[in-house]
């Protein structure tokens, strides 16, 4: 009897160990001391908890291993090596900032680990996949939109809304002097130009600039009616405040990262009104049937609204879930990659919180039923409205009352 019992115990124990070992171990990369990193951490945790509560993926629970990259290439490399060799994770998700991600694609290739990216908006990231598919096929951009696509959404709004409605003829670029931001601004300006808008002034200021009055002055003196901005740093806050204080005679349209969250109102002391920014494939608009619920749930859970990186971060685990469930052999990387390539979360559908559809280079398909950029504006009444494209409109774009064109 004793023998039988102990035998049973051993069987039970080994079974439970076996069961415990059978999880999906996923490494999460992010600069957690920054807001971007926090978004990754919170949204991924939220998705993992949901999936686990729902029984996991193919019956296996998700186990997350967070590694702080501190915004540095070096820390990210150490983190990837630790995750792949020590923690032996099955997948990596996350990564914010193009520099570190670009530099570590080779490490990813060397470690042959599937990586679902959440940040790193440089078009060069997926260009690498295009250049050498077999080497870099492990990377998928689940988000955010690359800088070109972000620029497109701004440009489209100017070309298809502001130009026909307000007969805008002249615009200026004022943007932070960073590659990522410059690409957004220049792409937007290019589309505006095709719609007949003349770019009369261009200025790139270094991160940490205190005074924008000279730039605003020069832009308006050159006759600009619209200022195309792309400010991915926190400079966007004081930029907007100063624009409001100076009652600059040109509308502020572009991509100010700080403006893409409800706190912006407090950070500017309410001086954010009329500011207009494109939200890259996310935001409080019904992109899918789940988007608005997600927004609310995140706010309830963490006390803050999700940021623009939260959307792809949350999406990654659901993209992975769908791929694993459809893969021929979910433990074979090649099969998982093939299944990932087939994942589609359509615009307006009920999967994910933002549309996902991959190009053959593992970039997001932009436009159509793929990813999109929504233009939001801080209205005079203080609400934060989606104003473009029309399908998502929660309010009408308002011309700043001090502008006389």
């Amino acid at each position, binding site marked *: 009897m004793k023998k039988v019992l102990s035998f049973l115990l051993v069987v039970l124990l080994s079974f439970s160990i076996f069961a415990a070992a059978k999880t999906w171990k996923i490494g999460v990369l992010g600069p957690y001391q920054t807001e971007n990193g926090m978004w990754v951490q919170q949204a991924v945790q939220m998705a993992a908890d949901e999936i686990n509560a729902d029984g996991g993926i193919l019956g296996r629970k998700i186990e997350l291993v967070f590694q702080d990259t501190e915004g540095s290439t070096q820390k990210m490399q150490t983190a990837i090596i*630790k995750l792949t060799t020590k923690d032996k994770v099955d997948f990596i998700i996350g990564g914010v900032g193009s*520099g570190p991600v670009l*530099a570590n694609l080779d490490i990813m290739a060397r470690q042959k680990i599937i990586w679902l990216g959440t940040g790193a908006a440089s078009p060069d990231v997926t260009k690498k996949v295009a250049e050498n598919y077999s080497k870099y096929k492990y990377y998928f951009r689940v988000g955010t939109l690359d800088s070109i696509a972000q620029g497109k959404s701004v440009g489209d709004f100017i070309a298809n809304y502001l130009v026909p409605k307000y007969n805008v003829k002249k615009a200026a670029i004022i943007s932070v002097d*960073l590659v990522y931001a410059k690409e957004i601004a220049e792409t937007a300006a290019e589309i505006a130009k095709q719609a007949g808008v003349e770019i009369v002034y261009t200025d790139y200021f270094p991160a940490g600039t205190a005074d924008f009055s000279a730039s605003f002055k020069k832009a308006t003196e050159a006759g600009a009616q619209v200022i195309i901005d792309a400010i991915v740093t926190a400079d966007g806050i004081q930029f907007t405040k100063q624009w409001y204080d100076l009652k600059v005679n040109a509308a502020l349209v572009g991509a100010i990262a700080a403006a893409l969250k409800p706190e912006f109102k407090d950070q500017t002391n309410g001086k954010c009104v009329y500011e207009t920014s494109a939200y890259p494939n996310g935001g409080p608009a019904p992109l899918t049937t789940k988007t608005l619920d997600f927004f609310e749930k995140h706010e309830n859970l963490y006390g803050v609204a999700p940021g623009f990186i939260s959307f792809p971060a949350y999406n990654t685990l659901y993209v992975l879930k769908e791929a694993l469930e459809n893969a021929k052999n979910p433990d074979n990387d090649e099969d998982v990659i093939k299944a990932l390539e087939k994942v589609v979360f359509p615009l307006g559908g009920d999967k994910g919180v933002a549309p996902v559809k991959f190009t053959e280079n593992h970039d997001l398909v932009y436009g159509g039923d793929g990813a999109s950029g929504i233009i939001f504006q801080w209205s005079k009444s203080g609400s934060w409205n989606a104003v473009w494209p029309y399908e998502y409109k929660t309010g009408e774009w308002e011309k700043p009352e001090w502008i006389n064109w």
Partner: protein
Amino acid sequence: MYIFPVFKDYYLLNVFSIAVIYAVYAASWDFLSGFTGKENFGHAAFIAIGGYMIGFISSVYPIKPFLSIPLAAVVSAIFGILIGLPTLKLKGPYFALATLAVATIFEKLSISLSDLTGGEEGIYGIEFLTQGQISSFYFVLTFAVLAILIMYILGKSNFGLILKSLRSDEDAARALGIKINFYKISAFAVSSMFAGIAGSIVAHFYGYIGPDIVYPLSLNSIIMAVVGGIGGIVPAALGGFFLTFISEMLSEFGDWNQLLYTVVLILSTLFLPSGIFNYLGAKIRTIGSKAGEK
């Protein structure tokens, strides 16, 4: 292989590689600043010159490490001389600000001149040091040991003795006929050369050079060298090695890690100004001599 189980652990191997490179950063800072008393607050500029040079070349021509390392050595030594010539007259805070200004100009330019430098995204796709992780580690280790050894021997030599005399009093050395400018420039050149080579090796190690891995080093080099102990190369190098090692191992702690780092710095300037490893070294020596007496 079995004697050193660490060598099978790729993660530790990677941390080791980074730590020995940081040991070179700290040691090369010490060679100029610890010896001559010219506190360089812009050591990152000297590291950047090596790293970015490899980056620039790589974007046109895939340069291999055996070529780029001697090239980096020459270019960064010349750069050290060029910066050294006008600034060597400056003392204390003036020299600190001049070097800080140089590093900040470099940083701003490497962000602004993005067509050349890749801006905040840096330059990637640089040829790897070697194909494998283990061979890369040995490469880095060999270089670090050699660099630290050379600087240590130079520091122990008559040349180093003169540098130390400059730290205490330049006029007293001049009165004896010592050509202080020659020695200061030489120290600049040596310090800059090793920093530049380390920078180029890092570029090859990561296959990347960018602002994130270079510019925080101005401060870090000072911290590592001062906490380790200045004026003897090896204590500074040990400071670089251990602080980096610990900081990499503690990277899960994020902000707490950085906070701890600064607390260590503050406490050691207040209570162990000679540096942890200088202090330990002295302790060991006194114990040794006591044992010898018995």
